[in-house]
């Protein structure tokens, strides 16, 4: 029995190449549509500033770039721009890391053990709906105004989606997959190792992505309240001095760093899960 017997079971989809007109070709091109959307956005932005809708509240897009260049060449509260960016990033990484170490195992064990679930689920359900930012005041009361309260808030913000996704990742596994292990004479431990772990990985990665963006929005909240460093501090400085360009520069940098982080997680996921159809093939 060789592979050509199976060939009739594989259906190749061959897309026919039709002769497109120029307009069709342009509309089919992803890059064309991307650039159109960016140009449109910038155009509206220029126009809104031109007709002076927000007054000093908004600057031209190119002024944001010049502002970033200007900020890189001078210090703010004794720190350079990249140091502020690093301060924020460091807080996110530490808080996010703590949340991962605590949250993923918690969700995982809640998924595989009903006793564990019975103990932790009520507490978790209480914490789950609380907005992370509502912890700001409490964390300052507990931990003062140093690094700890900021990291605490970030950890809380990242914690909830991590637990939730790990937990659901386990819960939504088809029970019959465990029967495959049982059929092969495997123990309960083997079921967890062979099925629970790998089957939950995609859900855990989804949790990482959500948690990361959660962490970045929390670092802002934490730095807006009390901080002498970080991109949140840069934004507050811009606000206090009435410089829209500085505020937007801060926002832009956060978006950039958060995007790079998210890209790294996607990359890691592709490496770890080469079996995901939506990831490995197009």
């Amino acid at each position, binding site marked *: 029995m060789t592979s050509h017997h199976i060939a009739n079971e594989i259906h190749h989809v061959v897309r026919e190449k039709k002769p497109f007109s120029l307009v069709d070709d342009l509309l089919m091109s992803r890059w064309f549509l991307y650039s159109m959307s960016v140009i449109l956005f910038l155009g509206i932005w220029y126009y809104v500033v031109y007709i002076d809708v927000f007054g000093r509240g908004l600057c031209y897009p190119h002024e944001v770039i010049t502002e970033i260049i200007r900020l890189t060449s001078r210090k703010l509260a004794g720190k350079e721009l990249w140091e502020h960016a690093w301060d924020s990033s460091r807080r996110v990484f530490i808080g996010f890391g703590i949340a991962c170490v605590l949250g993923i195992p918690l969700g995982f064990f809640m998924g595989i053990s009903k006793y564990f679930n019975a103990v932790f689920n009520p507490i978790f359900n209480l914490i789950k709906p609380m907005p992370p930012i509502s912890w700001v005041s409490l964390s300052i009361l507990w931990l003062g105004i140093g690094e700890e309260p900021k990291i605490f808030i970030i950890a809380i913000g990242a914690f909830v989606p991590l637990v939730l996704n790990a937990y659901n990742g386990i819960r939504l596994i088809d029970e019959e997959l465990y029967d495959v292990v049982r059929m092969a004479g495997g123990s309960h431990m083997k079921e967890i190792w062979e099925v629970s772990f790998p089957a939950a990985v995609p859900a855990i990665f989804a949790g990482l992505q959500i948690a990361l963006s959660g962490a970045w929005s929390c670092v802002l909240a934490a730095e807006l309240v009390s901080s002498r460093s970080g991109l949140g501090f840069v934004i507050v400085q811009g606000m206090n001095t009435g410089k829209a360009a500085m505020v937007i520069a801060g926002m832009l940098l956060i978006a950039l760093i958060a995007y790079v982080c998210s890209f790294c997680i996607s990359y890691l996921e592709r490496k770890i899960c080469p*079996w995901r159809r939506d990831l490995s093939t197009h």
Partner: protein
Amino acid sequence: MHNIKIACENVSKTFLQKGDTRVDVLKDVSITVRDNEFVVILGPGQCGKTTLLRMIAGFEKPTTGRVLMDGQPVGGPGRDKGFVFQSYMLFAWRTVRGNVEVGLRMRGVPKAERRVISQQYIDMVGLTGFENHYPHQLSGGMKQRVGIARAYCNDPQIMLLDEPFGQLDAQTRLYMEKETERIWLQEKRTVIFVTNNIDEALTLGDRIYTMKDKLPGTLCNCYEVDLPRPRESTDKEFLRLRKQIIEESELVL
């Protein structure tokens, strides 16, 4: 030679659904399967076929009655009972080879030996060249071949196949039936094959048990199919039996 391999004695199963609704799924089912026999259980949808097979596999316990294998009550699932699942149940995160080797890994067979054994069964089901494909890269028929190779890899005494080709198109299905027969002739095992397709039942079975529709599922009749293999669906005796089964079991086709 004609030892009784599997015996279900007055097996009934009642499920508790959503707390306290009791659903009688099977009632008083008794079947016997001889050594190396190919028995087909033919029944319409939702009559408890999967439940019966899962009890023989040891995944579920009968509410009343007994399931015996070699005269001993079936304790639980194990590698002596191979199961091929209705909806494939492949590990998406493993390649074809990784899926086929699952039982060997569980037993701690060293890698080199694992390779040899799994390759033998991958070749047997005709997946040579697809060892490193992931399930999402396979067609339905190929997925079920993996399911079959995976079950054979545990070297089971009995093979339980639960509507293995139910999700395939008619042409592929016919082809897979021929393949199943070929594999069975090559690697004789006691086989219990569940299906809702009468032609599939007549093509494959040494004996056919029919089940009534409506819950609780009960057995209807048992037919000996004494036709030479490979069978032709245009054969006179084949057609006569087909007609008889349809009339006697009110199968809706």
